[in-house]
């Protein structure tokens, strides 16, 4: 089926080459970073994780969201998702590819990355993150590919695929729980030291991922002959709405605990992010933008007439995605390091090269997504009218 990604219109190839160019620019900057060290980024002794790890954290959520299609379709026979589950699975593949790439570019000694396998350390959450991420990548590639090629041939997929599909459901929850555990168990970082981290992560994942999926489905409908269908998109919209309500509610819970208890370790990071601390406030405009976008998107999503309009839904999903990207992909990670263990403030902002490397990884992910979606959409176009058998 790979050959389907090798034929396409002029628009398709222009897009592929555009993405490849951004990947190349990112790669060149990465070579510079490899030679000169991570000092070319904005990270410091105090803020030792920045844009790369933030993006990784956000994208694990997007990857996990495939499960929001798999559960209704495979566990509850919600036939409407039949044609688009593949879009969720392939989005998961692209997202996990980006996650692994972001971790790789963040390492100080990337040539030693195999040490994590050569010296397995079960007490380290990073060890488990490596296992669950790679496992999830493998699961989604196999499940997506096998089910899609069965659809193309018009037959039922082999029976063993069902066990992998059922496995992928708890596995999807696990990837984001494990990623949350990276943060939630560190005794010195009070911004993260909260039991609700994993729940917050999952809620924002199940809001942000399907939101992206809605936008991608609408793009697919516009650019190709495959129409995902109005009803699946509406169903996804309801999932996004409920997940976003949960996510905003959980954030509110965190605010309450911090500000009602008045414990400095809890209040200070929030103060830094939303009001500035000791004269430092680089992130304040960003965090408020995230809040405003979240509120706007929630209002547009909750009101049924507005959610039913696909234009308004698309706008709400876009606003929601950006809002969550800021909150999880930036605010969460940086906020954990500010104030530092000495109650001082060292701010962080990514450098230009760091941004190019990050964009390069995003372009790589979108390239993988484009190629996989081209294959999936071509199969759907070919088999239009034929019932899905799995």
């Amino acid at each position, binding site marked *: 089926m790979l050959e389907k990604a090798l034929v396409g219109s002029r628009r398709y190839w222009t897009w592929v080459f555009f993405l490849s160019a951004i990947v190349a620019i990112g790669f060149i900057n990465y070579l510079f970073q490899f030679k*000169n*060290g*991570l*000092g070319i*980024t904005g*990270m*410091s*002794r*105090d803020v*030792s*994780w920045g844009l790369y790890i933030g993006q990784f954290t956000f994208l694990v959520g997007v990857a996990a969201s495939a499960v929001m299609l798999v559960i209704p379709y495979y566990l509850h026979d919600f036939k409407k998702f039949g044609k688009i589950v593949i879009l969720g699975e392939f989005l998961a593949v692209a997202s996990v590819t980006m996650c692994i790439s972001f*971790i790789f570019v*963040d*390492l*100080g*000694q*990337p040539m*030693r*990355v195999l*040490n*994590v396998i*050569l*010296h397995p*350390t079960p*007490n*380290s*959450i*990073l*060890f488990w993150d*490596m296992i669950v991420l790679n496992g999830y990548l493998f699961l989604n590639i196999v499940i997506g590919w096998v089910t899609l090629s069965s659809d193309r041939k018009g037959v039922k997929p082999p029976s063993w695929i069902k066990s992998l599909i059922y496995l992928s459901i708890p596995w999807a929850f696990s990837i984001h729980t494990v990623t949350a555990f*990276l943060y939630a*168990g*560190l*005794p*010195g*970082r009070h911004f993260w030291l909260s039991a609700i981290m994993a729940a917050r992560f999952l809620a924002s994942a199940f809001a942000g991922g399907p939101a992206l999926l809605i936008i991608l489905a609408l793009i697919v409908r516009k650019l190709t002959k495959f129409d995902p269908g109005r009803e699946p998109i509406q169903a996804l919209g309801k999932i996004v709405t409920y997940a976003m309500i949960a996510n905003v509610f959980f954030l509110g819970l965190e605010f309450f605990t911090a500000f009602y208890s008045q414990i*400095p370790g809890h209040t200070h990071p929030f103060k830094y992010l939303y009001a500035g601390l000791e004269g430092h406030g680089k992130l304040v405009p960003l965090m408020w933008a995230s809040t405003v976008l979240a509120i706007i998107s929630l209002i547009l999503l909750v009101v049924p007439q507005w959610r039913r309009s696909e234009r308004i839904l698309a706008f709400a999903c876009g606003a929601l995605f950006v809002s969550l990207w800021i909150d999880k992909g930036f605010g969460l990670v940086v906020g*954990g*390091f500010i104030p*530092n*263990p*000495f*109650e*001082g403030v*060292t701010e962080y902002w990514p450098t230009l090269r760091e941004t190019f490397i990050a964009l390069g990884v995003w372009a790589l992910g979108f390239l993988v997504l484009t190629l996989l979606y081209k294959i999936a959409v071509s199969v759907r176009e070919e088999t239009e009218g034929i019932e899905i058998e799995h």
Partner: protein
Amino acid sequence: MSMDRRQFLKVAGISTIFGLGGAPVINWLRNDGLEASHVLTDEKALIGKHWAMVIDMSRFETEEDYRRVIHACHSIHNVPNLDNPKDAVKWIWTDTYHHTFPGQENEYIPEEIKHKPFILLCNHCQNPPCVRVCPTKATFKRKDGIVMMDQHRCIGCRFCMAGCPFGARSFNYKDPRPFIKEENKEYPTRTIGVVEKCTFCFERLAKGLIPACVEASQNAAKEAGKEPGMFFGDLEDPASEVRKVLSTRYSIRRKQELGTQPSVFYIIGGGKNA
């Protein structure tokens, strides 16, 4: 004999797996031919079950008192001189009382303590979160209590830096070598992309010497006829210096409530402030 493409691919795949898997097995079976050789610890080495340090801040009075201990450590360990808050690499350094003990904010402590620099370093915790999170055991806890660094294995993920509640660890964001004033040829440097921190001078302990900072502080005190400001010893040895000092003077540790069990104890007041 005919074989279709599927069968051929299956045979090729399984042979590859066996071939690749065989290599480590053969490596393991083959010995290096040196039965008689073995490793030992040096007889002079200091042996302990739980190394700890006591810092009596009342004995630190002049700028030289601080400079001497920091210089002792940073010079023999080739610690690069990058002093900016972004790339700083430091194994032992100074900061104010409020930054050293953030949970102990107190507006009414004596002025001299409020403005006095305190000495900070890795606390070599008994229950270290940095060791718990390291994915390669590049940082690990020795039997004698030292939280050690294996710079050969570190992949530079900086999870340990996120895990340390005390900000004791530094990362080599740049190549350190251009920033080393005078190299000590008997100790290695580090390289880009690995984390480093105080190691309680494990290489000196192995030769029977106490940590450089403690030695510098104690030598200077002896010369000036004063009481020393730093003590080092085995907490599990009731006759050790550290046990004697801790049993007679009140001490605190940084962020005790987090349960990491630091092994560096601070005596704050002393003399008139006892």
